[in-house]
Every structure is written in C-alpha cells, then in structure tokens.
C-alpha cells in the first residue's frame, strides 16, 4: 500500500474535495493501486529524452491582441448559484466582520 490515510487527506485537501471516512478508505486502496500501476514508467531510462512540451504540429501562433465584445453580464451571471448587485456572491474570504 503506497498511501496512508494522512496522504489521502492531504491529496483531498489539495484537490478541495470533501471525502467521507468510507471514501477515504476506498480511495486509499484504489489510488495506491493506480499509482502502483503507473509506477511502471520508472523502469525506463529517460535521461536523454526531452519532455513533451507541445503536441501541436505545426506550432501555433498567438492571434493579434485586439479587444473584442465581452459576453453579456446577465447571461454569465444566470448560471451562478448566488449573485448580488450583478456580482458573484461568496462567503467571506477575510476574517473579521462581514
């Protein structure tokens, strides 16, 4: 087993995922198996191999940087769970009085 329960909790925090106790145990086992399988790559000597940087052939170029019409604000806000004064509303980010 590669991963401990602490490892799973650390990964879940990095990934911003709430997990139940049952999920933690299940993922501990499953993630360990997956990581064990992908560990097969370690058997290859890649000292002289460049890492792939881009899959695009031929290399792409940037488009001219010109201002364009933005999407209408009400349409973009329409999918938000909570809005106020034409803005996304979230819980307080800073400590102190809201």
């Amino acid at each position, binding site marked *: 087993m590669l991963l401990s329960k602490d490892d799973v909790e650390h990964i879940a925090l990095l*990934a911003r*995922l709430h997990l139940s106790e049952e999920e933690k145990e299940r993922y501990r086992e499953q993630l360990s198996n997956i990581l064990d*399988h992908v560990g097969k790559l370690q058997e290859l000597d890649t000292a002289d191999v460049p*890492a792939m940087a881009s899959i695009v052939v031929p290399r792409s170029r940037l488009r001219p940087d010109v201002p364009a019409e933005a999407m209408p604000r009400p349409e973009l806000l329409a999918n938000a769970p909570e809005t106020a004064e034409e803005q996304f509303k979230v819980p307080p980010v800073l400590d102190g009085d809201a």
Partner: protein
Amino acid sequence: MSAAKTSTALHELSAKQALAGLRAGAFSSVELTRAYLERIEQHNSRLNAYLYVASETALQAAAAADKLYAKARRKPETRLPSLLGLPIAVKDVLAVAGMPATCGSLILEDFVPSYTATSVQRLLDAGVVILGKTNTDEFAMGSSTENSAYGVTHNPWDESRVPGGSSGGSAAAVAARLAPVALGTDTGGSVRQPAAFCGLTGLKTTYGRVSRYGLVAYGSSLDTVGVLARDAVDAELILKVMGGYDPRDATTVEKAPKLDKPSGRSLAGLKIGVPKEYFIEGLTAEVESGVREGIRQLEALGAKAVPVSLPHTEYALPVYYIIAPAEASANLARFDGVRYGLREEQADLIEMFKRSRGAGFGPEVKRRIMVGSYALSSGYYDAYYGQAQKVRTLIRQDFDKVFKKVDIVAAPATPSTAFRIGAHGNDPLEMYLEDVFTLPANLAGVPGLSLCAGFDSQGLPIGLQMLGPHFADERLLAVAKAYQHVTDWQTRQPAL
C-alpha cells in the same frame, strides 16, 4: 403515402442520402426531424442515449431550413448551406447556447451555457438541426457511460451491454437510428471505442484540426472533437464543415497540411503497418480474427500490409493515467460553486469548495482529480508528471518512425466486443485497460478511425482501427470509404 410509412423510411437514410432527399424535395426537414423525434420518443427511455431532447428548437430549425429550400426552388441562384436541414446529435460535453450541458455530472445539473462550441456553431452555420444532447461518462472520463450521473446508456445491439464510452450516448443514438450522425469527443478513445462497440465509423481527428472552444475541458493536450457516423462518407461531410482554424483555440492550425490519400476504390500503393504490440494477450480471438480479416480485405483492394513495431505501446496506459488526471485536476478546479454549478452553502470558503465538489463529482472524477493532484504535488512532480511527459515523447517518436515507412497503421480498436453493464464495477484499473489500443493516438496527437469489420458469434460489432500521421484524417476516411464500398457491415442495424 401515409405519414407513418414515410417516417419509418426516413431514419434509414444515411446523412448523405438524407441531404440528397432534402435537396430533391423528396421530403422536408420537418418530416425528417419529426421522424427522428418520434424514434427518440419510442426508444430513448429504454436506451438512455439522449439526456436532453430539443424537440421544439429542432422543429423550428427544420422549418427554417425548409423555407430556405423552398426559396431555392423559386430562385435557383440561392446558395444553400451544405448540411441544410440535417438532424444531428451532440455529446453533452459540448456547449450549445440555450441547451443544458451537464457533462454527465451532477455538478452541472442546472448549467445552461450562453455560448456555442465552435465545432457546433460551424455545423449550425451549415444548416444542421440539433436533436439533443447525448449521454457521456462524467466529464468524458470512462469507457462505458456507467460513470454518468444520469444512468447508463444501453448498447442497441444488446441492451444488457454498454455502448462504450465516453461518447456512448452519441454512439447508441446513431446505431439505433435515433440520429443520422452525432458529435463525440476523444481524449483516450472516447469516439473510437464506442464506435467499435456499436458498429459505427468513428473519427478521432488530428489534435489541432477541430477547435476545442466550447468543449468542456478534461485533458487539454489530449481532447479532440470527433464524429460518430454510419459510414465514412457521412463522417467526412461533418469533418469538412467543423474543422479548421479558430482564433478562440490557439492550438488549431491555420493551414492543415494536405497529405496524399487513395483516390477512388483502389488502395494500390497504400502501405499498411500492422503493429505487433496491438496483438497481445487480452485481445479476444474473435476480435483478432475479425481485424485480420479486415486487413486482408484492405490488401485485396491493393494495399500492402507489413509488420511494424511501436515499442513503447505498453507504456501508453501509465503515461495517460498520469497526464490525463493531471490536466483534469487543473481543468476541473473551475468547478468551485462560485460562478456556475452546484454549491453547498458553508460559512467558510474552502469548506464550501470542498463540500460542493464532494457532493457534485462522482467517484471516477474524484479518483482522477486526486491522482492528478498527487502527480503534480511537490516532491512527486518529477517522478510522475515529468517522467510521463518524457515517455510521451518516446510514444510520439514511435509513430513518427513508423509513418516514415507506412501510410497508415491498422490494429484492433478494442481488446473485446462490448462488455456487460457492471462487468468492471469494482476495479477502476480493469476499466482503464479497455482503452489500451486507443490511448497512444491521443498521446501522439495523431488521427484515428474505427470502423465495423464484422460481428462476433454473439452478434456484437468488431472494430478495426486505423491510425495515420498528423493531418491524415482524409487519408483514413478515404481508406474507410474504399473498404466500405466492398463490404456491407456498416449498413447492418440492430433490431430494436
């Protein structure tokens, strides 16, 4: 002729035949669209191919198409868009303004995009009628549609089996004649594998050929938009319209190089590589013999088949299951309950993120996000992600070398024919192995096509896969057309 009799015939037509009928005025787009909507009404509750049926807007679009056809009859100089009045289905990971885009996930249950994917917009500009949005494994992560939050899609050839995935809804819709043609996406095989399982022609386009704008991102360096069609002729009709440079996707190329392709019905001069690494333990005897028979058929048409080697094939699976989850963990960070999607109210912001994502994502998505987060995390990055990108270079070089010697590669699309629903229920790795023959093309960015090369003893379709060098999409289609000219596997349809 009674209306009922007309509509039973219309769904039998391929996209090309349907367009010819529309142009000739043999039937209207409203009649054609209604025929499909009736079939959806009749069969979708059982098959679960569509998650959303756009009956009203489809009939409006069809009526508009009919108006334009009528105008062209009065004024012959009227220019008609190439796909005017043709119904299509769209995988639910592609945005269509005003229609839900759930991506098979609870986290986007109520999401309705206000914009349209470039690939879809080009088809709309060419006159298509969108029938609806099709089922998919959640965020296109899976090989069976069993990871959809909205239930599994059933394979029309045997409803106790999966249609493949992740574009399983699109595949089942086309196979069951609930759509003439459908869009899918292919990140690790998600067009070719369901095409194989459902007896269709599935095209995974060259990376950079079709814009990804409006495709909800899973693995950005692997994602491609593709087509599920009854035959290569129909697939080509769609590719022609939806491909090309898009300023909104910097990875699309402005001018795709034009490669040689067979013309007409002969494959004389075509060199086919048969990679030994694709005929391995785990490949069923029936799929192997079906694929080898398909290659013999290509030889009978004049092609020459030679053995080749793609030595790093066995590493494609581990490379993919590092790179795809790594990219997914970054891409899916946007689902945080702030701008769109499910929110679980919490007093604390981080807790809100965690609870929203914990409740909104299904098990496979959580697994991949966590594998990706781990592979990118401090202390593990070089060993996992860094090493995977290096081995990806080796896989790409394998293809570069082979395509110096041969024009295309031919191999099985899948190790077996369609498996039973629930067969891989408890073991994610077992499911991953289903994609072992399709993953390498995504890692190298090359195009791939799967076509029906026969049926096994249980009456399930067998998929022959062809791969080509970058931008050989048309070459693959030309080979498939020549093959389908002398076989009739692609015309068979399941009894519903």
